[in-house]
């Protein structure tokens, strides 16, 4: 029997029913506290599906992972450094345009993503129809419709999660194409980034963060020195400036 425990991260905008889904999945098997050193709530729970143990982390609800608030840092660091086996991005089906911003950001960071289209009951009431197969094709990852508060779609979600942790789902996350000037800079940075961070972190994403002048990420990288040496961050910063 497989004794491994899989880690699932829950990301999403505020008010998308992320915590409702968390509660449905974990029931009472959860506890909350703060993230170390931050006044940001940390909620963690456990569930069993088909005799396998899962640990699920409810990340703070954010619109983005770039704006450098404590909430967003926590969410970003968890996805990048803790490398969950699956990241669930919970989207509000009634406000997809707003919600896809975060989804695309997560897709740049990891390919082990399942999109949870929550509040499908609300969307239906409002007459919103979503072409789920097409959305999934465009994003390159599974999309599961949910109405978490009515517990609809949970079984399909769990099945998809189980298949993903067992490597039965191949994803091809949408790569956001930027302007030519930016793409040229990314191309220049990529080999340098790969040299410094290796396969440990998503190189294209790191390159983009460097181009954006994201100093908060560099600080975070410096605090994870086991794979990313201190000189590495400074070096990378220097490279980014020279590009």
């Amino acid at each position: 029997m497989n004794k491994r425990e899989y880690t699932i991260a829950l990301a999403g905008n505020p008010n998308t029913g992320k915590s409702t889904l968390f509660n449905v999945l974990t029931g009472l098997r959860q506890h909350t506290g703060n993230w170390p050193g931050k006044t940001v709530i940390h909620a963690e729970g456990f569930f069993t599906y088909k005799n396998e143990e899962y640990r699920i982390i409810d990340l703070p609800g954010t619109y983005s992972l770039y704006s450098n608030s404590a909430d967003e840092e926590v969410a970003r660091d968890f996805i990048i450094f803790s490398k969950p086996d699956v990241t669930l991005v919970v989207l509000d089906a009634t406000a997809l345009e707003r919600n896809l911003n975060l989804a695309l950001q997560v897709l740049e960071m990891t390919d082990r993503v399942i999109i949870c289209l929550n509040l499908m009951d609300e969307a239906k009431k409002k007459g919103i129809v979503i072409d789920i197969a097409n959305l999934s094709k465009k994003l390159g990852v599974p999309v599961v419709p949910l109405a978490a508060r009515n517990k609809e779609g949970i079984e399909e979600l769990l099945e998809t999660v189980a298949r993903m942790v067992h490597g039965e789902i191949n994803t091809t996350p949408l790569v956001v194409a930027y302007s030519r000037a930016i793409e040229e800079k990314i191309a220049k940075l990529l080999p340098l980034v790969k040299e410094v961070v290796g396969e440990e972190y998503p190189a294209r994403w790191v390159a983009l963060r460097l181009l954006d002048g994201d100093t908060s990420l560099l600080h975070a990288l410096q605090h994870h020195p086991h794979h990313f040496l201190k000189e590495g961050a400074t070096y990378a910063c220097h490279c980014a400036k020279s590009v």
Partner: protein
Amino acid sequence: MTEAKLARLSDANPGERFRITTLKIEGTMKRRLLDLGFVPGSEITVLQKSPLGDPTAYRVSHTTIALRKEESDHIYGERIGNE
């Protein structure tokens, strides 16, 4: 359209709609405004001002977001009248 015709979001009154043309600001605050849905091309509705006139609540792609004048001052676009 000429630059001179652009209005600031902070000039728009409650009930008015506003289409964003550009954000004249850089750095983290720009990023933040974009993430919240204040992107060029999007239509905003001014909902209401707080009793002292600042901040102001806006409707941005199905969500209510309040901005202070120091933020809405940097958002330029067209005022497209009342709903």
